[in-house]
């Protein structure tokens, strides 16, 4: 059986259902409006709605009434919306990501320098020569990559909430590692990324077509 496409008259969400369900009563999964499934594709047009003309016009939203659907009930069908993406609404991940990112770079240099000092002490005690640069480079790059990742995650926090949240948590981990070098600025950076990551997951999300 061919599919039928139509839009919810209230939230304008697009739905695709099997044509065998024509005439059945369905419930929009987003706004919970009950809709009678029309018998033809109305993917671009809204179903005919009649708004109450007896009431004076106000700025309050008016509930649509369906004129071409009889409400003699049959089994309500839950529909799955098609072509919908989730978008975040909070600017907090962006703010946390940017502040964390711009502070993360000097924190990384600081961690690299501190780690190089620790490596130098270790080298002096063991009589070796390679730990100074190795440790310094490791903490420097870990901090820089963490800062860049946190910055990118923060900026994308609204557009791609879940991947951005994962990136920010990864950045928290990377910045957190540089704390071992005793750099407290890295602690602030890690906390900012952690908060940003948490907000990415918990922020209110809205559907976009």
């Amino acid at each position, binding site marked *: 059986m061919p599919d039928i496409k139509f839009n919810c008259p209230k939230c304008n969400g697009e739905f695709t259902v099997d044509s065998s369900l024509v005439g059945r009563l369905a419930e929009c999964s987003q706004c919970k409006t009950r809709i009678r499934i029309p018998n033809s594709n109305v993917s671009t047009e809204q179903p005919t709605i009649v708004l109450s003309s007896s009431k004076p016009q106000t700025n309050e939203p008016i509930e649509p009434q369906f004129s071409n659907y009889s409400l003699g009930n049959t089994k309500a069908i839950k529909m799955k919306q098609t072509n919908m*993406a989730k*978008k975040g609404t909070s*600017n907090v991940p*962006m*703010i946390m990501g*940017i*502040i964390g*990112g*711009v*502070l993360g*770079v*000097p924190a990384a240099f600081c961690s690299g320098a501190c780690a190089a000092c620790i490596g130098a002490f270790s080298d002096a005690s063991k009589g070796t020569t390679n730990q100074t640069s190795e440790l310094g480079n490791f903490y420097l790059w870990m901090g820089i990559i963490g800062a*860049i990742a946190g910055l*990118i995650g923060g*900026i*994308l926090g*609204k*557009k*791609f909430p879940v991947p951005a949240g994962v990136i920010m948590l990864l950045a928290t981990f990377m910045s957190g590692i540089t704390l071992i070098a005793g750099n*407290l*600025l890295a602690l*602030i950076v890690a906390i900012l990324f952690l908060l940003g990551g948490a907000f990415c997951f918990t922020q209110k999300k809205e559907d*976009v*077509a």
Partner: protein
Amino acid sequence: MHQYLELGNGINIPLYNLVIGFGAIVGFLILEKQIKEKHIDFDTDKNIYISLIIASIFSFLGAKVFETIYKQQIINLHIILQSGITFYGGLILGMGSFYLINLILKTNNSIAFNMTVPSLIIGHAFGRIGCFLAGCCFGMPTENYFGVTFPNGSIPFMHYGPNIMIHPVQLYESIFLFILFFYVIKFVSFNKRTAFYCITYGIFRFFIEYLRGDYRGVLIVNSLSPSQVISVILTLFGFSILIIGDHLNKNIEKAI
């Protein structure tokens, strides 16, 4: 001027970075507002952000590489990492990569550029305040009322010595950019924002370069600084997109 914000326990926050970060936040909030006001669809919105992020990385690399070119140093990773950044280097590589990524993602370049220009201006305005706090990009000595002295240990102090009043060129530029931002937002039509920015900033930067006191480097022409050469090119570029792109803009205006 004041390089660090001291929080105690040895935590010093570099104010240059903090102010630039603040500028970036304001820039992104303005971009969000612009996208809402112009009813840009989610796909274009997403693509602009992706392009911006990739372009920012190229922009940062460009800013570092151009600094080494200006100073006629050998380009290698170690020197690039240690070098400072130049605005024009970042602008050229950033704009170029932004254009190319928009082409790849099939985003309308005119919409993307005109949408992001106000954010670039406001971010740059805050960035110059950061420069003033860090003491970089300083001006020439002056005896006029606006002259400022920088504290012991700052770059201008080490360059000129104690108690020398210098032009706060960073603040001149910052004030200009704030005014330019409000003018672009309020009075310049959407389709002419990029061209207007290129022309006005190019002209302003050409003249403000004469007040700069830090080493300006050499590029192509000895009598002009590299930034002045690029300013001339930027201004001409602005005029060309204003003239050539006029008929294209009419079509885009209908699309928005």
